[in-house]
């Protein structure tokens, strides 16, 4: 048996972190979710995907939403972005009720959603142009956003010529160009390889620091959630509801070194408990399949 390391409680916060949260809660509320729920009516009856939930997001906060598959985390964020209808409740953006998709709420998707027929520059200009702007100012602005995500060398390339990471950086630039109140990100790095994913996470924090934007980030990667967020909204499945809305005790600025810090590990342990409750019994019920050779035991 290996030695079990005693971790501090994830609720223990250093003074620095506590001060930061106090400061965050003083900021105005950007998004207020009041009893938003989602249910589908099928032939067999009504299925509740998401029970009515309530929470607030403050200005320039970084919120992650995690939960087991089927907990409705994507549905929640899509409803907030206006891409799906709510079955009940309302949500206020800057105190005003919002409905339908709009330029005030940006969204970055998991799949690559760049317009394949437009170059990188035109993709970024898209949002500005459909909102009625034109002229060389738009182009200049687009180039600045592309510069921000570090793709100045690829402005005239088509999406098909870019790697997955580059595509997502363009997608981020495209969303930010509209200067949305809040940016929803639905597992944006899910399709990337681990190395690129790490780079993108650091990059996203950098962008978030430089741009006045509030971010709600859906993921199923615990490390990613802890590394990026101020607070993590943990959902549970069947029906989806808030399990816990926990404050990440890891101080900012974040770096890779913190991945093994006690606060980080404590938070991760707590998230594991919430999302993957230990069930040893189940594990032992699995049938054992023996191949012809049993000489090389792996455990």
């Amino acid at each position, binding site marked *: 048996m290996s030695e079990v390391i005693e971790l501090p409680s994830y609720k223990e916060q250093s003074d620095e972190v506590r001060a930061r949260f106090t400061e965050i809660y003083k900021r105005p509320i950007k998004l207020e979710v009041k009893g938003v729920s989602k249910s589908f009516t099928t032939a067999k009856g009504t299925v509740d995907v998401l029970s009515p939930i309530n929470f607030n997001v403050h200005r320039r906060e970084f919120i992650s939403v995690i939960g087991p598959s089927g907990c409705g985390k994507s549905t929640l964020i899509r409803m907030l*972005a*206006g*891409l799906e209808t709510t079955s009940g409740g309302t949500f206020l953006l800057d105190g005003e009720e919002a409905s339908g*998709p*709009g*330029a005030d*709420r*940006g*969204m970055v*998707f998991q*799949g690559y*959603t*760049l*317009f*394949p*027929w*437009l170059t990188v520059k035109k993709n970024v200009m*898209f*949002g500005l142009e*459909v*909102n009625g702007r034109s002229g060389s100012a738009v182009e200049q602005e687009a180039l600045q956003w592309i510069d921000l995500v570090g793709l100045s060398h690829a402005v005239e390339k*088509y*999406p*098909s*010529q870019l790697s997955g990471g580059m595509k997502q950086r363009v*997608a981020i630039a*495209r*969303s930010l160009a*509209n200067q949305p109140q809040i940016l*929803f990100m639905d597992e944006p790095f899910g399709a990337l390889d681990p190395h690129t994913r790490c780079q993108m996470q650091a990059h996203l924090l950098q962008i978030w620091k430089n741009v006045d934007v509030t971010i709600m980030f859906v993921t199923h990667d615990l490390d990613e959630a802890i590394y990026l967020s101020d607070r993590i909204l943990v959902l549970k499945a069947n029906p989806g509801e808030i399990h816990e809305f926990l404050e990440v005790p890891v101080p900012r600025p974040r770096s890779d070194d913190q991945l093994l810090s006690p606060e980080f590990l404590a938070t991760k342990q707590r998230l594991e408990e919430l999302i993957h409750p230990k069930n040893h019994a189940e594990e032992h019920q699995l049938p054992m399949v023996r191949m012809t050779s049993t000489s090389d035991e792996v455990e």
Partner: protein
Amino acid sequence: MTKNKKPKAQRHPWFAVRKDLDAKRRLLLSVFSFIMPLAIWCLVSYTPFIWHPDIKLQISADRSDVTTVFTAGDHLSKTYFPTFVEAIQKDNNLVLAAREAGELGNGGSRARRANVKIIRQISSPAIANGWLTKEEAEEDEALYMIWKGVAEGSLEGKKVKFSEENVAIAQRNWALMSAKSPTYDSKLMPDQPLQKLVPQGRLANPVYLPAPHEVVVKGLEDFTFTSDGDKPSMFERYKHSLKIVFMGFLMAALVGVPLGVLCGTFDFFSKLFEPFIDFFRYMPAPAFSTLLVAIFAAHDAPKIALVFVGTFFQLVLVVSNTTRQLETSLLEAAQTLGAKNMTLIRRVIIPGITPNLFNDLRILLGWAWTWLVIAELIGVKSGLTEFLETQGRWRNFDSVFPIIILIGVTGFTTDQFLASLRKYLFPWTPEASEKKHGIFGRFAFWLLDRKVYESPVNGKV
């Protein structure tokens, strides 16, 4: 030891499941796919022991007391030909028997006419051998001299070689003819009946399968035929047919594409139009032909309308389906960027579907071509089809094949041309970056690429 032998690059075997062959092999097979049917056609046409159930007459003769007349060029079945030959030989034997019995002809006008007919019998082998032109077929002076040539052995014939039997007949006839007059004189004809040339022929395939060279020769002849005011030239017919196809297709596309896009975009229009269109497309377009003639009267309008009816309904459904296949996430992304209904259609849906729409239209242009022949038959027959129909009725199948091939070649080249345009029209699509040039693509590239014009030798640019 071999020095520095370069290791050979591996390549897939000819038969590898779901693997592309290399470029050379692909080209080879593509060329072969055209050569193969041609080769089979040649094989069947030029190998006498394969098939060839018919005899194509080179020399024909009229049987006495039989009204059915065969002329040179007609096809007879292999089994019937000997009976035909025997009938003529029997006629000849009677003539010979009468002559030996000393029955001299009375020199009446009837016998004379029969003799003129026999003299003219030699014209078809004479034309085939190039001794006469087609226009000279009834010039008796020339025919008279050909009889002399055949009888004396100075004319033998390369294409149609006279059988020994026929040479003997020619000699006997010429003896009677020359006794009266050495050159043709309509008043100095033999009084006795002459002997008929015995039918000769060569093995041939049925009339509906002319040999390749016959098709080529006839095709060139038909295509170079210039209009004489009454009948249009082949080029005019071709232009007319093209006009029918493209007008019908263009109108179907002009109405159908916007409708299809609307149906694919809004469920409202989809449910409003598509059920009926789906029903309507099962009614065959030709079934409307008489109706269309009644509505649009004669000439081109009902023909164009038929191509339209045949294409439009398919087009709407195909386009709406293509529109629906545009990834929803692109639309959602555009919506989160602030795009609303009309902007979505204009800036996302239309550019998003154009590459696939282009392919759809290519396929539907092929559909339009299939309606051409029926369209041109309704009302007043016109264009290529009128020619096709007339020649087919006369069983001139060597004239029919060039037209069929012309239509095929036109459709195929248009399609290939449009396919190779794709990568220039849509540079963002994956196949554009693969740098696959079609035949026309390479040609266009060669035209557009300025470097080609710069001489590499003295080219200090």
